[in-house]
């Protein structure tokens, strides 16, 4: 979990936009997928802080920003992200105790 403070010095000329996202859920994790065309790995910041996931990214002309509320069942230490072709994928694994488990029944 990182708790870095994000720099607030954004030039006024940049337009702040919400990236479009998909939020998917499986038995073991949540998956956040965001369209961030023109965003380079170095210009992207993901912060997890107090149950909030904050996304900040910059391109030459735009400032992408959006934050998401995280449930208690997300394992914050195991969050992983990948950026490819301008699409960001954030994997948010569920805590072991929150995962659905099949209980075997003895006959």
């Amino acid at each position, binding site marked *: 979990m990182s708790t870095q403070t994000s720099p607030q010095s*954004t030039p*006024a*000329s*940049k*337009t*702040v*936009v*919400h990236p*479009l*996202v*998909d*939020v*998917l*859920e*499986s*038995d073991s994790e*949540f*998956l956040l*997928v*965001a*369209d*961030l*065309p*023109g*965003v*380079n790995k170095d210009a992207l910041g993901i912060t997890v802080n107090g149950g909030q996931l904050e996304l900040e990214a910059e*391109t030459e002309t*735009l400032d992408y*920003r*959006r934050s998401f509320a995280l449930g208690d069942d997300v394992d914050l230490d195991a969050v992983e992200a990948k950026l490819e*072709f*301008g*699409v960001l994928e954030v994997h948010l694994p569920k805590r072991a105790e929150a995962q659905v488990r099949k209980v075997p029944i003895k006959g």
Partner: protein
Amino acid sequence: MLIHRFNPNDHFRTMDMLFDAIMPNGRRATNFVRKPARLTLADEEQAFILRAELPGLDPEALELSVGDDWIELTAKRETAVPEGYTALRRERGAYELQRRINLPKRIDQGAVEAQLRDGVLRVSLPKHASVQPRQITIKAA
């Protein structure tokens, strides 16, 4: 330019947009959503620059062809929910576009360069020598 899908029946959103319009850039409460597959064409001195936001596009699914004074772009992206996942929210759409853009001047077809990086396509279309500006020397009479 800001693009937001305007819905005349969403009065709260409309109010937000009105307030946003009078607020300085950094203080906006609501943010705008960009339309996917946005295209811009810039007319520079030496070349036309076509820029397209195509996030998540496989380079294989992109086709470009140029003529004397036009460029044609075909791109397709599909978004599917991977196996084992259920969607809680889906905003990213699939897109399929086939656009032909007429250029106001002749271009040098052989010198066209295209690059797809971080989901942004940038095509440089150098103007043909016959339409480049020429300096005229003036003889002293």
